[in-house]
């Protein structure tokens, strides 16, 4: 069977797992291509007005796949991927959104993935999903391999991060943490290639995916109440961790994102308290890149000119804010 996976939203987090799982079960996977203007336009046309940009992009990818002639689409109904946490409520309704916004939609494979009470819930839903395709012992084997592959990929990111030397010791170039949902950061089109632009400007770019879950948890302890959005938790924890280690933090958020409206503000407050320059870029359906470029360029100027003036010491230390 040809199973279509839209290259959007949680593709950017769980693709290693999905790829292995379906391949082990002998299914053919078709992933939509990288986001283009055509896909975005398609999604914007299909979506009701109130949806956020990433979900519109997702709908565009779904349509793109439907046109490619897949037998069914993998649109999981994800409720929670970590214990006692949730993901964005819009994603929970994703299968329903897809069904209602698109005509002539291929059948959906939409298992409920709910890890609120622990990983057992997640395992059960994958086993149930897999048993549509193969006998249970094969499914268990496939899940084991898939979970191992996911862990391997996540670890390799962390390893790569640790392999780079301690960022603060680097004299040349700036170290910048780019924070945001992975489906914004790594979608070259939607993010207007911010990460690559920073790299081209000789910056070392760090993201939240490179940090261990424990590190994130540790740096979220300051919160009086637990952050129960998985993605928000990662962003905030990473902001705390990185604020002592980088020259500046760039937050990418999508306009009209509910969780971002809170986490970005928390990150902003934290940056102000710790005196770290912070740039917030809100992304929407704009395709003109000038606005983003100007902001990024000015932010780099701020960091570099600051360094120059203060003899390579960060200009934003405590003393600057004291009268």
């Amino acid at each position, binding site marked *: 069977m040809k199973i279509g996976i839209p290259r959007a939203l949680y593709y950017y987090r769980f693709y290693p797992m999905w790829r292995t799982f379906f391949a082990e079960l002998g299914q053919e996977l078709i992933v939509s291509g990288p986001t283009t*203007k055509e896909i975005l336009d398609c999604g914007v046309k299909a979506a009701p007005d109130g949806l956020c940009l990433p979900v519109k992009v997702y709908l565009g990818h779904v349509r793109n796949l439907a046109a490619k002639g897949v037998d069914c689409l993998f649109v999981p109904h994800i409720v929670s991927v970590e214990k006692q946490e949730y993901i964005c409520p819009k994603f929970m309704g994703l299968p329903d959104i897809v069904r209602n916004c698109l005509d002539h939609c291929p059948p959906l494979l939409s298992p409920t993935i709910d890890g609120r009470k622990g990983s057992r819930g997640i395992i059960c839903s994958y086993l149930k999903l897999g048993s549509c395709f193969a006998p249970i012992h094969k499914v268990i084997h496939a899940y084991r391999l898939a979970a191992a592959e996911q862990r391997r990929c996540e670890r390799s990111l962390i390893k790569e991060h640790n392999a780079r030397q301690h960022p603060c010791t680097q004299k040349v170039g700036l170290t910048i943490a780019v924070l945001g949902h992975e489906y914004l950061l790594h979608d070259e089109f939607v993010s207007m290639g911010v990460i690559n632009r920073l790299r081209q400007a000789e910056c070392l770019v760090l993201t939240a995916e490179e940090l261990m879950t424990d590190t994130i948890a540790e740096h979220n302890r300051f919160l009086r109440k637990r952050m129960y959005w998985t993605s928000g938790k990662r962003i905030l924890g990473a902001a705390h961790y990185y604020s002592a280690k980088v020259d500046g933090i760039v937050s990418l958020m999508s306009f009209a994102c509910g969780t971002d409206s809170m986490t970005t503000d928390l990150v902003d407050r934290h940056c102000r308290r710790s005196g770290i320059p912070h740039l917030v870029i809100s992304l929407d359906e704009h395709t003109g890149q000038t606005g983003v470029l100007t902001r990024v360029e000015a932010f780099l*100027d*701020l960091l570099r000119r600051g360094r120059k003036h203060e003899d390579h010491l960060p200009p934003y230390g405590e003393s*600057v804010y004291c009268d």
Partner: protein
Amino acid sequence: MSRPVYLGVDVGSVSTNVALLDAECLKVVEKVYFRTQGQPILSLQRALSQIAGRGQWQVLGVGATGSARRLAGVILGADVVKNEITAHALAALHVEKAVQTIIEIGGQDSKLIILRNGVVTDFAMNTVCAAGTGSFLDQQAARLGIPIEEFGEIALKGRHPVRIAGRCTVFAESDMIHKQQLGHNLADILAGLCDAMVRNYLNNVGKGKEIREKIIFQGGVAANKGMRKAFESALGTEVTVPEHYDVMGAIGAALLAAEHLQSSKRTSFHGFTITESVYQNQSRDCRDCPNNCELVDIVKDGEVIASWGSRCGKADWGLDQISREASAFSAMMS
């Protein structure tokens, strides 16, 4: 004898500004403020020919800024192409060393720049919408049938500014019409409009920023005395409008050029003869991938001198300005 100067150009959405700085004392020698009127190249040529006609200049360096800075950079052969924020900050620092806050409201965007000890520490620009910028004031002045130049004077006479919704300019407009139909006088409505714009600015652009004295208000909208007064009463402190408030971006660009050429080299300025060239730009769509990027060819006297607009970068060339930006960065680092 020709006078040595640095040339700064700021081609924005609404106005095109040119400033000449004396190479010795870096004071403004000449300035021109032109309406862009949707034709950045033509207005740039006009502004330059005006400047050229006012004396004999030996241009030592050229800087370009503003939203059409790449275009201006290619046409001029600029030595430095820089974003508006850096340019505005430098210009304000040049005028007033102790500045800690810069409020800049232009035609399409508004900015807030925070400085401490002469270094930019934070900045903000209006986000996805252009609410609360000069073009809104322009529109409303046109709707009320008063020249924009008189807007501020009339607003100053308002004794009891009416409350106008400031969140969105579309709301503001309907609210304003409502107040006008109730019979409030023009001065009070205009004063209310200024208050609403300032409120909007401080809530959006200024959200969470620490605005400290000394405050400099620049950009085209700073000409509006009503806006200045509204800022002063909202912030409870004095707001300074510098002498050359309308061309601060251009001054900043000229300063950047001066800084850039200090270390080295000769300028890459094409000379004032560019005012006589004919530019015929062509747009075309790239069909190589589904992105359908809109490309622009910059054509000078029948010859394509630059081209850009592709996301992948393969159709972009003639932009050694960009690499010049990069080298300006690395020069700053050393």
